[in-house]
């Protein structure tokens, strides 16, 4: 436009056109660069198209659903199409280029959906982001078409941590993702489970976090902690549950025995126990029991008193002859399972000392394992019965020889001073069959009590005596039944030596034999006074029962035994300070139990202290103070009751002819004084002849003499009054008249009171031909006043006349002289004559009814008569 013109005067600037392209063009160049780079990049990033076949397109969305690999987006569904078979859909997925390496054979695809379960929430992100497809790479050749899984495959075992396999019988409530707990802490999870190749069991794959992998050793036991387990039996209720999550979602717990140093061997297969109980005992042992053994699932296995396992499973063999029990034994008890180990099931039995363990009664007896010493073994055959000799505890083993086993059994205690110091561990017949060998173990701390001269005797509870008169079951107190067993003592001799193992002892039948009738005693008992009392029956007296003096215990019952004459010999030991109390005047009686007697005299209940109620006891008292001191082993009689002991008199037997009844407890009176008591009444025949045992008091000894007379006093009401009115209330009693002859213990009673010939006053005899209305107690009148009475009558020896025995009161005895005349005034004397008319004579009303005798003594120098004088009884008043 403007051209340089140097010729002009005006200087115009030289303007040069800038011909090169403007700098501004860098801008589009830059933009092109960016865009080009973008294009290249997009080309480079262009994904790999793969095909994945899904069963359903549910949750899949083209352009939205992503492929995730380890949480990173690795691709996206581009299109979805229904396959030709109309049964599946194929998703065309564009994968990131980096994902090329994982698109190989074995790679697995599955759709991740949100899963909300109690074991946790999974795929929560899918709630916001939508479902996505997870990819797990496989190994193999490159591949671009896949078939998706319906559910997630097990995670790859490529995490740090521990992967374990468990074998289980059932996958009960175990899910993938179920947690593994150690002491309720989550330490891992179930990553997969499925059938084993043989489809017999279930294999559960676990993943344990690396931080906890040291918890697993070869001896770790896993159990299913799922759900709630409630086991109840009468002895206890066992309710177990894991964490709340484990209850519902399932879970596995494990336990490693403490102090277990063993390391985990690779590929160790663990067993998943169904519950905690099962896991506790791990070793499976098969034991064959005879059929009909009362086993059940859960029966405990005990060794040395420690529970080491239980019956897991029971199966009867096909021939029904054996019962195959599968036991689960605590792994810690593994050393016990060796060849020679013995299993047996003790016969359950109810005995009083087993009652202490009521659980046993209900649960059944446990299986007992006695370890052997051979090679480890896991199949055993149970014994039919307990082995003869089994050391049940550590201590001194002794052997006893006995003729009979008696009531001993396994576990029967060995008592020393009533303290159990050991127990019977077994028994067997000797090889020749002549003896029973009893094995016993004495606890370690008591072993020193046994010396070579220790003496053992059987202290068994119940003795049954069978005889002609029936079976008598004689038991001691309850405690003696319970503590039955073997007792022993070590006599106080100088040459005591310790015993060697298996030293044979003889088992005596009772203490008496063992102690050689008490000559051998405990050391400290030597200073005590040993006496014996003999009783008809033992009652409830037990060993150790107190001997009471005025209710104070002064000694004990040391032992007792049957003596040869069928009575019980009870040996008492009186403490040293009280030795002097025992004299020959001592009377012993049994104060055991309650002494209740019911008689017409009322009810009498008597009991000593509560202790004697339970254990029995013997009391004694001295009849008088001046007895001589008792000698050792002096024999006394044991009375059943106190009053018998103190009664002092002998027992007599009186046989009464038929007549008034008499009952036990009826007293025996002489002049109103009780001299005895009817102890026993026994009918001898159908007529009513009764034999009574009468216990006499000390004063009653007078009655145990020849000539004594006994009759039953029964109430009798007659016109003149009532005889023995007290018997109306108190019942009949026995009247007695002492005799004066030799001692006699058997008497014949009289039907009625004997005529009394030696009453106080004047006793005379009247003779008459007819008794008339005269009766005993008919009065004798003198001038209308009663001065005596008829005390009895009897036929004369020639039966021609009647002898009346009359007693005149002492103050009137002088009225009777040899000139006295007696006549009968009983009845009405009526005389009727035509000329005389009616004449009725009677004295008084009483004599009219009762009969009576009057007498008259003429004045003069007649002599008073002496007792026994005989008169004639006139029919009527003689004419003067």
């Amino acid at each position, binding site marked *: 436009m403007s051209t340089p013109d140097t010729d002009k005067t005006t200087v115009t600037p030289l303007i040069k056109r800038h011909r090169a392209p*403007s700098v*501004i*063009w860098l*801008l*589009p160049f*830059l*933009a*092109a660069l*960016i*865009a080009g780079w*973008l*294009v290249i990049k*997009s080309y480079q990033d262009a994904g790999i198209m793969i095909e994945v076949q899904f069963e359903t397109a549910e949750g899949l969305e083209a352009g939205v659903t992503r492929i995730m690999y380890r949480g990173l*987006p690795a691709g996206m569904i581009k299109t979805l199409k229904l396959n030709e078979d109309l049964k599946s859909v194929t998703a065309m997925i564009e994968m990131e280029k980096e994902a090329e390496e994982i698109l190989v054979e074995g790679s697995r695809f599955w759709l991740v959906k949100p899963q909300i379960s109690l074991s946790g929430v999974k795929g929560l*992100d899918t709630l*916001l*982001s939508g479902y996505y497809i997870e990819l797990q790479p496989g190994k193999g050749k490159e591949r671009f078409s896949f078939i998706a899984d319906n559910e997630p495959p097990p995670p790859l075992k490529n995490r740090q941590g521990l992967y374990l396999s468990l074998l289980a019988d059932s996958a009960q409530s175990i899910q993938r993702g179920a947690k593994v707990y150690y002491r309720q802490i989550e330490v891992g999870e179930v990553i997969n489970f499925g059938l084993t190749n043989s489809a017999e069991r279930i294999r559960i794959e676990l993943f344990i976090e690396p931080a906890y992998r040291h918890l697993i050793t070869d001896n770790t036991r896993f159990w299913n902690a799922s759900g709630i387990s409630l086991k109840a039996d009468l002895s206890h209720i066992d309710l177990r549950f894991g964490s709340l999550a484990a209850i519902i979602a399932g879970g596995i717990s494990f336990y490693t025995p403490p102090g277990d140093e063993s390391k985990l061997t690779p590929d160790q297969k663990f067993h998943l126990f169904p519950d905690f109980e099962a896991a506790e005992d791990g070793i499976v042992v098969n034991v064959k029991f005879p059929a009909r053994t009362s086993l059940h699932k859960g029966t405990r296995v005990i060794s040395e008193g420690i529970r080491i396992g239980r019956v897991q499973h029971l199966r009867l063999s096909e021939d029904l002859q054996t019962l195959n029990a599968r036991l689960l034994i605590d792994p810690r008890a593994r050393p016990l399972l060796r060849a020679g180990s013995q299993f047996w099931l003790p016969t359950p039995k109810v005995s009083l000392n087993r009652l202490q363990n009521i659980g046993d009664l209900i649960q059944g007896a446990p299986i007992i394992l006695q370890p052997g010493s051979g090679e480890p073994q896991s199949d055993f055959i149970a014994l039919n019965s307990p082995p003869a000799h089994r050391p049940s505890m550590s201590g001194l083993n002794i052997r006893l020889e006995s003729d009979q086993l008696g009531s001993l059994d396994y576990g029967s205690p060995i008592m020393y001073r009533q303290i159990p110091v050991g127990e019977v561990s077994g028994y067997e017949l000797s090889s020749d069959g002549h003896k029973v060998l009893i094995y016993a173990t004495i606890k370690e701390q008591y072993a020193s009590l046994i010396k070579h001269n220790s003496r053992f005797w059987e202290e068994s509870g119940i003795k049954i005596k069978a005889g002609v008169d029936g079976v008598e079951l004689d038991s001691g107190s309850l405690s003696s039944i319970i503590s039955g067993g073997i007792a022993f003592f070590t006599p106080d001799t100088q040459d005591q030596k310790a015993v060697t193992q298996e030293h044979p002892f003889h088992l005596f039948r009772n203490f008496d034999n063992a102690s050689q009738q008490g000559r051998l005693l405990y050391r400290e008992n030597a200073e005590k006074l040993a006496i014996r009392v003999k009783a008809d029956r033992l009652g409830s007296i037990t060993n150790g029962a107190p001997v009471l003096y005025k209710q104070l215990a002064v000694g004990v019952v040391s032992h007792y035994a049957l003596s040869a004459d069928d009575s019980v010999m009870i040996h008492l030991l009186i403490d040293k300070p009280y030795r002097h109390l025992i004299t020959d005047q001592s009377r012993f009686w049994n104060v055991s139990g309650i002494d209740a007697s019911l008689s017409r005299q009322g009810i009498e209940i008597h009991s000593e202290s509560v202790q004697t109620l339970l254990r029995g006891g013997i009391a004694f008292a001295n009849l008088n103070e001046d007895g001589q001191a008792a000698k050792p082993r002096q024999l006394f009689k044991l009375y059943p009751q106190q009053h018998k002991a103190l009664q002092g008199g002998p027992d007599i037997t009186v046989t009464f002819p038929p007549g008034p009844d008499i009952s036990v407890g009826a007293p025996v009176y002489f002049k109103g004084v009780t001299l005895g008591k009817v102890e026993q009444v026994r009918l001898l025949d159908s007529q009513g002849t009764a034999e009574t045992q009468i216990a006499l008091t000390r004063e009653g000894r007078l009655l145990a003499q020849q000539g004594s007379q006994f009759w039953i006093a029964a109430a009798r009401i007659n016109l003149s009054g009532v005889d023995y009115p007290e018997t109306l209330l108190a019942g009949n009693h026995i009247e007695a008249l002492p005799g004066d002859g030799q001692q006699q213990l058997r008497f014949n009673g009289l039907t009625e009171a004997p005529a009394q010939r030696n009453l106080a006053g004047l006793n005379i005899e009247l003779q008459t031909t007819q008794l008339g209305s005269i009766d005993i107690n008919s009065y004798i009148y003198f001038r209308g006043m009663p001065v005596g009475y008829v005390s009895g009558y009897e036929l004369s020896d020639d039966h021609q006349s009647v002898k009346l025995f009359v007693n005149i009161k002492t103050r009137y005895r002088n009225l009777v002289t040899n000139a006295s005349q007696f006549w009968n005034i009983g009845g009405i004397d009526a005389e009727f004559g035509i000329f005389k008319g009616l004449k009725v004579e009677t004295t008084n009303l009483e004599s009219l009814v009762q009969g009576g005798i009057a007498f008259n003594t003429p004045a003069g120098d007649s002599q008073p008569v002496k007792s026994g004088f005989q008169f004639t009884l006139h029919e009527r008043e003689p004419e003067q």
Partner: protein
Amino acid sequence: MSDKQPLFQSARQQGYLLCVDCEKLHLLTQEGQHCDRCGARLHSRIPNSMTLSWASLIAAILLFLPANLLPVMTFKSFGQGEPNTILGGIIHLLEQDMLLIGLIVLIASIVVPALKMIAMIILLCTVQFRLHTNLRQKALMFRIVEWIGRWSMLDIFVIGILVALVQLGNIAHIEGNDGATAFAVVVLLTMFSAIVFDTRMIWDSSVADLATAKREQKDNS
């Protein structure tokens, strides 16, 4: 067409030029000097207008590609979320039945820049190749484009505001991406392209042609 054009002569032809700032009339000879009054640089046409306009327009067109292909922002909620391109966001809005907002974003972010670029191409071609058709419509189109073009920055502002405001940690947060930068550059470039484009050049060629035609007429007559 051309006969409908009013016959006129441009100032430039008359030997004048106008100060673009204070609109004082100067002689054409004063071109390149400063305005007597306001001191602005005097030129009858914007220097290198065509070059600058073309260059920025081409750059804008090239950058329009990444602006739409690259994600403009990433909205993450609870760790989930992915980068969104402008178009993806619009589709998302339309899918969500937010038609109005979707349309606004569509117009502001895609239609307007695209139209603007097309308009600029047309204008530049008109000047470049001395086209004479529909010059008035083209002038109108330019005005519209220039006025509406500024709204294209709406997207960028929204993204800027969101990135600044939505920073709720893991619950939700938004971050800008390269696409937004590219888009902003696109908008700026188109604006620059429009600014440096001297509309008077639309008529320069036709005026020149008219003058020649006149001269020829005169010469013929």
